[in-house]
């Protein structure tokens, strides 16, 4: 069942095209990720879906609601956590939460069950001012405030940017709990590894969608054979691989460097041996085939644009 539908959405700012004719459908209760770097158009897209910005052209519906015409109907059913912290720093945790509940004519008690798994992590500090909280706690409070009126659609703009790996893992666990309550969730992130935590993702770059599918299918669409090379001196390895005459792309990936070839021979093993022979004269390394991940796919799609 389609919950959100966008058709031919275009948005320009002066001579910059922020969204270049975007169409997509998001299903009810989906955890949907928009993956892309700064400037891809993720925030603009969210603001249009949330009725905070009008598109130059295109149609958007959320459920039965026409987003461009029925703003006040829409706003009752959405929860939004913008990229920068937007709560009242002078109010305490409890006061912020109470304020947002009341704006939506609700109360903390009414929907406490929904926020409970997250709120209990910060509840013992509830008298503390929001401005005095750590980054991780601010984020949890902002999530509670976006949920306290039990929205049908929750939109989170880069909730994990600049957040450490541990807090990021916790945040995604919380999102899964919220999804179980039947809420549709849109989330954007520049961290490619978070794509695998979404039901479906749209890979975005410069106002366009490069690919849209489940993380599994996106990875299986990768056409090249991907080789990983491991060595102690990665900088030297990158230089060596770049000067390999048959190299097509060379990208460092953690402790390995990923390489694809211009001409692949019919027999995969042969390519490996050839590369191994070439490298053996330069430096000590291990060469093996590897499954691509979302980031490999993203870079491949960027390259082919």
């Amino acid at each position: 069942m389609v919950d959100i539908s966008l058709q031919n959405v275009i948005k320009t700012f002066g001579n910059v095209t922020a969204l270049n004719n975007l169409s997509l459908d998001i299903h009810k209760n989906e955890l949907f990720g928009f993956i892309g770097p700064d400037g891809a158009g993720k925030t603009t897209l969210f603001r249009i879906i949330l009725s905070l910005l009008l598109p130059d052209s295109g149609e958007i519906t959320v459920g039965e609601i026409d987003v461009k015409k029925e703003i006040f109907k829409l706003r009752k059913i959405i929860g939004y956590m913008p990229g920068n912290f937007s709560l009242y720093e002078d109010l305490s945790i409890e006061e912020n939460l109470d304020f947002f509940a009341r704006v939506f004519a609700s109360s903390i008690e009414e929907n406490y069950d929904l926020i409970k798994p997250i709120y209990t992590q910060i509840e013992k500090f509830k008298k503390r001012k929001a401005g005095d909280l750590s980054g991780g706690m601010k984020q949890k409070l902002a999530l509670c405030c976006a949920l306290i009126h039990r929205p049908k659609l929750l939109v989170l703009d880069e909730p994990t940017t600049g957040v450490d790996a541990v807090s990021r893992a916790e945040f995604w666990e919380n999102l899964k709990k919220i999804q179980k309550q039947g809420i549709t969730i849109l989330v954007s992130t520049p961290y490619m590894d978070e794509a695998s935590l979404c039901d479906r993702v749209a890979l975005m770059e410069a106002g366009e969608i490069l690919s849209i599918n489940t993380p599994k299918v996106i990875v299986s669409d990768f056409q090249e054979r991907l080789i990983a090379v491991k060595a102690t001196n990665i900088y030297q390895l990158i230089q060596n691989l770049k000067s390999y005459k048959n190299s097509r792309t060379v990208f460092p990936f953690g402790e390995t460097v990923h390489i694809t070839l211009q001409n692949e021979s019919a027999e995969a093993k042969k390519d490996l041996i050839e590369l191994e022979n070439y490298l053996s004269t330069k430096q000590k390394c291990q060469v093996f085939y590897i499954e691509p991940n979302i980031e490999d796919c993203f870079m491949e799609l960027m390259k082919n644009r």
Partner: protein
Amino acid sequence: MTDNIITVKGLTKRFGNFTAVNGISFSVRRGEVFGFLGANGAGKTTAIKMLCGLLKPTDGEAKVAGFDVFSQAEQIKLNIGYMSQKFSLYSDLTVVENIKLYAGIYKLSKQEIKSQTEHLINKLGMQSVRNKFIKSLPLGWKQKLAFSIAIIHNPKIVFLDEPTSGVDPIARRQFWELIYEASSQGITVFVTTHYMDEAEYCHRVSIMHQGNIEAMGTPQELKAAYQATSMNDLFLKIVR
């Protein structure tokens, strides 16, 4: 004669009764790429501010580029480079104006400013945007330019605070090639990041938690010691 460019012993910073940095000790060698990792609020920024001569420590000792953080903060500032994700370049100045501004601040001669400007623009392939405002450039370009400017005065060490946050994956990798290049020329690179794959690119890393350094070593050593499959796994094991 030691080849250490940073030596830190028992470095401590307290704010009231809160200890942000709790007696950390480590050293960084010339030309090393040192990853300074840790959870949000672990004390990384406070430690970096002390090393850059921007914040007086409460206790301990630290020498950066041969200068003492207590008594020679101004000399430290002249001998280091610094860039962060939040602030690096002036968005209302053009590419060339930014280069000239920073080169001037770091007291390069007129002749040097001229030659360095051309050198940087050619090296980064920015001929077509040389007179464009910084705000009109993609983030990846800005960050590459900001890094090159941060080392325009050929400092002994450059501090990078989350330089690649939000940068697209290809530009992020190009950025790391610039880091490697600087390192191979003898510039020490002191970098923080939340991308755990980037932690693998460092020669050595330290992991900070609640004001203390919990672990330090090469990525291979640390993964072996904690039986972790990746740096992400290692980080979760130490900080959680």
